[in-house]
């Protein structure tokens, strides 16, 4: 996350770096946490592992809600996601950033939590990838501190 400073003017670049860092971490962690378990039978099995065991290791709690359309899209919701639970930035209250022009402030407020969430998306993506599941992960921080992650498995 500290990469932010390096790419202060290039949010897309920073985002991909942060995502890559998360990916690396998720990849290694899932390798460690699956060492002693039998192979997963299907995608749902692997996703459940992420929701329960993997999440518990990282956050001492499980994912609160899991939804799926049974066609490769899963929505994992954490009602109180730790990594953003202390963030004071709320898209609706950016009025006090008077030193910057309003537009920049608005962009920044929307971007900031997203920047942090790139890491978690990377972690989930890396973990699933290590389990043999190629997927894209995005996050929806619109209801902080609750946060949902959308996992789309690539066919």
């Amino acid at each position, binding site marked *: 996350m500290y990469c932010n400073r390096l790419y202060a003017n290039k949010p897309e670049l920073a985002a991909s770096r942060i995502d890559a860092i*998360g990916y690396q971490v998720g990849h290694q*962690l899932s390798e*460690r946490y699956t060492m002693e378990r039998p192979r997963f039978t299907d995608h749902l099995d692997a996703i459940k592992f992420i929701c329960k065991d993997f999440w518990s290791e990282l956050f001492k709690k499980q994912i609160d809600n899991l939804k799926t359309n049974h066609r490769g899209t899963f929505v994992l919701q954490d009602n109180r996601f730790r990594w953003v639970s202390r963030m004071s930035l709320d898209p609706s209250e950016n009025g006090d950033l008077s030193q910057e022009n309003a537009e920049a402030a608005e962009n920044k407020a929307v971007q900031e939590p997203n920047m942090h969430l790139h890491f978690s998306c990377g972690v989930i993506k890396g973990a699933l990838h290590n389990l043999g599941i190629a997927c894209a992960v995005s996050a929806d921080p619109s209801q902080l501190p609750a946060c949902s992650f959308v996992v789309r498995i690539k066919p």
Partner: protein
Amino acid sequence: MPPVGPRSGDAIFANVERVNAELFTLTYGAIVRQLLTDLEEVEEVNKQLDQMGYNIGIRLIDEFLAKSNVSRCVDFKETAEVIAKVGFKMFLGVTASVTNWDADGTCCSIVLEDNPLVDFVELPDTCQGLYYCNILSGVVRGALEMVSMKTEISWIRDMLRGDDAFELQVKLLKQIPEEYPYKDDE
């Protein structure tokens, strides 16, 4: 009831929020790795890690003072002891020792026998010049600067380079006198 007197590193460590150690170690590793890919030059990575540490340190000192209840240190010797015994324990979960004082008490070594940052780490041949834990020196430098001490910090021993411990040399350059009153616009 607020605690009275300074608290021990162990007591604080037991009470603060902690993060999964593997997550911490692997995340740091992934950051270093990403920096190596992006910056290419090992020297640049060292510099960047130090800068990141500095940025952390200047804020971490607030957290430290708020939670440790440590009061003003009488001299640099006490400062070094507090960093090693309370600071490192509080934030890294390990205790360091202070040795190798010079005659006038402005330069010493902080020795870490155990360092969670380097679990699972091995330096490949291409990264021999890398100070993998350079973030730590930045943290200490940044934190001390916020309490009016300008320091210079260098690595003397590094386990990743085959030494038997991590040794950080901390040299006190000068004490910056506090200035009152602060200007309004600062």
